[in-house]
């Protein structure tokens, strides 16, 4: 039996980590993002990506979408702790595998190089709703919307076509069908 020198108990077994997308409806007021993010950092929860914007200026509501990983117990805690915050109205939780939910991220790629390379780049992007936002003799900016993994892949693939800059958003989510989350 080893000798523990800590006043605290030794850590127990760790469970399996799942990826979840947590959507939080909050009052759009000063400090609300800090409250949500502070909860995650203070309790040691993980944030993979984050997207925030006001969605209803009349009711003053913002929607925060957080991609996180954790054991089922941790995910439950995240939801319950979020619900305790005063400016939080409701919290939705989706699993990444969930077929009933759409997840999307957006990315901007700036490519510098020959026309040939740029066309090839555009071709590779095609299946991700590629849009050319800016074009010069030497460069272009392509916008795509896709899942995180696809964007990861694309930013790798585009390197050989003269990719010089990447800018991307966090994930946003919405349920399929006529239903909305209550």
């Amino acid at each position, binding site marked *: *039996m080893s*000798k*523990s*020198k*800590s*006043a*605290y*108990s*030794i850590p*127990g*077994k760790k469970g399996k980590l799942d990826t979840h997308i947590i959507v939080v409806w909050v009052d759009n007021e*000063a*400090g609300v993002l*800090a*409250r949500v993010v*502070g909860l995650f950092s*203070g309790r040691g929860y993980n944030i993979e990506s984050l997207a925030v914007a006001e969605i209803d200026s009349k009711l003053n509501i913002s929607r925060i979408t957080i991609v996180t990983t954790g054991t089922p*117990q941790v995910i*439950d*805690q995240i939801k*319950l*702790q979020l*619900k*305790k*915050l*005063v400016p939080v*109205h409701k919290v939705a939780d989706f699993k990444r595998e969930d077929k009933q939910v759409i997840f999307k991220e957006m990315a901007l790629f700036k490519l510098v190089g020959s026309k040939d390379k740029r066309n090839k780049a555009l071709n590779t992007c095609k299946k991700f709703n590629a849009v050319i936002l800016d074009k010069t003799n030497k460069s272009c900016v392509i916008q795509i919307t896709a899942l995180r993994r696809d964007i990861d892949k694309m930013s790798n693939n585009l390197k050989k076509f003269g990719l010089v800059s990447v800018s991307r958003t966090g994930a946003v989510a919405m349920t399929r069908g006529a239903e909305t989350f209550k």
Partner: protein
Amino acid sequence: MPKSISGAEIVFKCLEDQNVDFIFGYPGGAVLPIYDELKNHSSIKHILVRHEQGAGHAAEGYARSSGKPGVVLVTSGPGATNVVTALTDAYMDSVPLVCISGQVPTHLIGTDAFQECDTTGITRPCTKHNWLVKDIKDLSKIIHKAFEVATTGRPGPVLVDIPKDIQFQKTNYSKFKKENKYNGKKHNNFNHKDIDELVKLMSKAKKPIFYTGGGVINSGPKASELLRELVSITGFPITSTLQGLGCYPGDDNLFLGMLGMHGTYEANNAMHDCDLMINIGARFDDRITGKIDEFSPKSKKVHIDIDPSSINKNVKVDLPIVGDVQSVISAIVKTIKKMKPNFIKSNKQQISKWWEQIGKWREKKSLEYINSNETIKPQYAVQRLYELTKNKDTFITTEVGQHQMWAAQHYKFDKPNRWMTSGGLGTMGYGLPAAVGVQIAHPNKLVVDIAGEASVLMTIQEMSTAVQYNLPIKIFILNNEYMGMVRQWQELLHDKNYSESYSAALPDFVKLAEAYGCVGIRAKTPEELDDKIIEMINTDRPVIFDCLVDKQENCFPMIPSGKPHNQMLLGPKDQEKNKITGKGKTLV
């Protein structure tokens, strides 16, 4: 048409509407308009502390002993940062506090102005919610909301940061209407099916136990009454956490004593071996559970708590019931009376073996210690204090450390709200200012701070507050010249390397008392102890009681860290008997 009044006046109007009688505070530049307004509001008394941390703990003592929220008023910058410890303490122990802090004028915010700090940023993780008031029109709404958030659901501290210019600005004040609904954060809609399920589990249980905590106290005195009824109609054993002491009589035969790291042998073994654990208003803290993987492996666990996030946080439970303890127990009692009017009779046989087993554990007498004729044993001092004050409806506060555990083990509480201690945060220096707050709430009661000499020095300046307001608090110091709990851990776990745990230059506490203008009493031998305690009780002024105790005494029993409940370390008597030498030491 209502007349236009200043922000400072609105603060007091709100406090009056909230029936606030006392505020604990310390003035400074950014709250001067509020202090200027104080003279116009005679129903509110301001208690001037000597350090803002003291204001926070005094408000905690006031709140815990009276059931009303404590109100704190501090200035910007250092005033606010000094109160952070007390806010965190209140957050951990679910004490309702409303802290109002001054802030530099709005046009200076963000410029690193004199005595500016990001108060709402600093206090965000240690309050239930906080507000920076940027518009005078929001002020009254925010203050009323602050009281609501602090006192509803699981109580806790809140902070309202008011810039100085807002305190000067004028607007109308509309009278406050109390709303019943609160942003959907109130949780008292438990399902009666769950209650039926619980009663079913209870009637089947062969080894049941009630494990009660501070939630019972926070739910109000009625909850304690109902708990006593529930225990008496079931005949189940009951144990309590540190914060829950007093919700069930400490000298009752069904009470197994406190559980946890320094809990009794019978309470911890019963927790480990039970087949039904009913947690009422406690939160499976790590000092209670020990090693989580081996925590009460054979039991069905029921958890009654008002805070949904407490459920399954540390320990997975089988039946969660989210609701106010008082309403839940009341529903359980009603259901038992209706469904099983003869519960206790029909159940007696079923749990008699369990009680037999508990009796065997009790025979260990885990709280016993080897007494001495020459030196005062700290446990003996607490026992004598208990015997000599138990008929007086005494209020006890403590600091943090060995003395705190000895107080919890040997002082038997029989009413709620009589025991104020820093459990979650473990704040040394809590007890003295808390005693100030308790005495404010209960001017004619005996209030004793069972203290350690190291802890009490952290907030000793509040003796001045006690003297100023004629608060006859008794500071009962178990003086062993060591940071006792640190020394104990060093003895048991760090090869007796007493690194920095001895206080080499302590003040003469009797002279210190005299310097503050109160009374100093010293007890050196067990023989004189009783007389000195009686002298202390009979002194109608603040007293510092310097009780010189055995310097080497350790607090037992004890669950060493990372161990389950059934591997307790018992006191010296047991260790001698069982000759636990080399091999036993590795148990630590």
